[in-house]
């Protein structure tokens, strides 16, 4: 895990200069991008906003949105599981629509407003009502899958503020959890719905609206 957290580990390079074994791989952007050009890959500018903050980066065209969010934007709350669209851990909102960030090249999000799990909590760190409900329901165990479930749930409840259990299971069927058996996650969503219904809930009736930070001065 810790290797993957490093922004420019040899794993993330094209590998052409690590063949010697003792020679470390490219460790800075310039050499990484030079290796990409040598391999015939385009280098492009990508820009979009993430949680209300504008981001512009020079990256390989083949860089997925998930990798740019984690490596260039430094937002490692978006997790990468399967990297081919099955597990749902990397789900983010792209202009409000839940999307697999591992199944998009970053360039496809040009100009978009992206919301990641870091955008859920308040500026003072107060958990989003969905996060609080999930904690209260002990929704997750290891929580590797949590960012994806949270973003899928946010999109679900903005579409349908009072979904049936069947609708919850259907809408979250694109997210895999290997710990819980899903019951506690479904209960967490239902608890979030209940919080919204109850005016005495800490966050009030509009708590599940578009309260994630999707806009900001820089966007």
């Amino acid at each position, binding site marked *: 895990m810790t290797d993957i957290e490093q922004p420019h580990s040899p794993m993330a390079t094209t590998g052409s200069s690590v063949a010697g074994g003792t020679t470390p791989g490219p460790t800075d952007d310039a050499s990484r991008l030079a290796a990409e050009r040598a391999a015939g890959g385009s280098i492009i500018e990508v820009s979009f906003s993430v949680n209300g903050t504008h981001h512009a980066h020079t990256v390989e065209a083949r860089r997925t949105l998930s990798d740019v969010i984690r490596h260039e934007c430094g937002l490692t709350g978006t997790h990468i599981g399967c990297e081919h669209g099955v597990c749902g851990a990397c789900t983010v909102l792209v202009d409000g629509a839940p999307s697999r960030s591992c199944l998009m090249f970053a360039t496809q999000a040009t100009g978009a407003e992206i919301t990641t799990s870091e955008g859920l909590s308040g500026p003072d760190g107060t958990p989003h009502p969905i996060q609080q409900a999930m904690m209260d329901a002990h929704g997750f165990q290891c929580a590797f899958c949590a960012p994806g479930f949270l973003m899928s749930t946010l999109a679900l409840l903005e579409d349908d503020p009072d979904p049936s259990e069947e609708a919850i299971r259907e809408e979250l069927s*694109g997210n895999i959890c290997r710990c819980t058996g899903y019951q506690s996650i479904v209960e967490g969503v239902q608890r979030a719905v209940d919080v919204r219904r109850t005016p005495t809930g800490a966050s009030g009736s509009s708590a599940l609206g578009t309260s994630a930070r999707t806009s900001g001065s820089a966007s």
Partner: protein
Amino acid sequence: MKPPPFTYHRPNRLGEALALLAEHGDDAKVLAGGQSLVPLMALRMGRPAHVVDIGAIDGLDSIDVATSGDDAGAVTIGAMVRHEQAKRSPTIAEHAPLIAETMPYVAHRAIRSQGTVVGSIAHADPAAEMPAVVLATGATMIATSAADGEREIAATDFFQGYLDTALRSDEILTAVRFPAWPSNAAGVTVEEARRHGDYALVGLVVKIELDGDTVTDAALAFFGAASTAIRVGAAEAALVGSHATADAVDVTARIVAAELDPPADIHGSTAYRKHLAGVLTRRALTRALRVDDQADHPIGAPV
């Protein structure tokens, strides 16, 4: 698990995209929503030297209904129309109800947000839903190239093999036109998958036309049952002229199970899939023909 390097193109006009394809031909792939292409590249099953992204081209994301002429009522879906856009479209719901019926089976919300209807058809995965809808409805593919302009390809000619279509390497599938939905038609889509939203183990799109309780036309288009989406002509022929009875359903289902020879994979054997195809035929036709009053009604059927 990272896509290999490629030269990236993001043209603003269709003409530029077509010129790029004319120049780079077999070394290029068209990127629309990317929900099939990106994972294929991540798995290194595809290594195109050039990627032509059509996402910045205006005018490819419309859903249009022909209001007059021979095609009146036909629905044309542009190359950048996302699955979720189609799923939520009142136009699709009214004029192309079999697409609306099928959409909930297509992947998951987070994939439908980006993936395109036309891209799924061009990709031609044999276990995907939209190619079967194309076959069941007799849709027309509109391919565009710099050399020949627009070329129409019939559903029966389009799917040629596993992930293989009649599209040339210099062409973009710019739109697909679905014929007007007949007033006497009923449609049903059924599917079994390991997990709802995953690719089908086997699925079936049915379109039948009725005169009273007599079947006058039938299309049974299966997915996940061969190297392409596939119709079962023998079963359709047996169904046409039949009355809407449980016997007709049973006979048709038996023919389907006998005729199909689905490939085996880690998710299911040939024998299992043949059985499943028969079961799904029973379920779909029971609804489409309203044999069982307790079953959900088909879409578009006369009351």
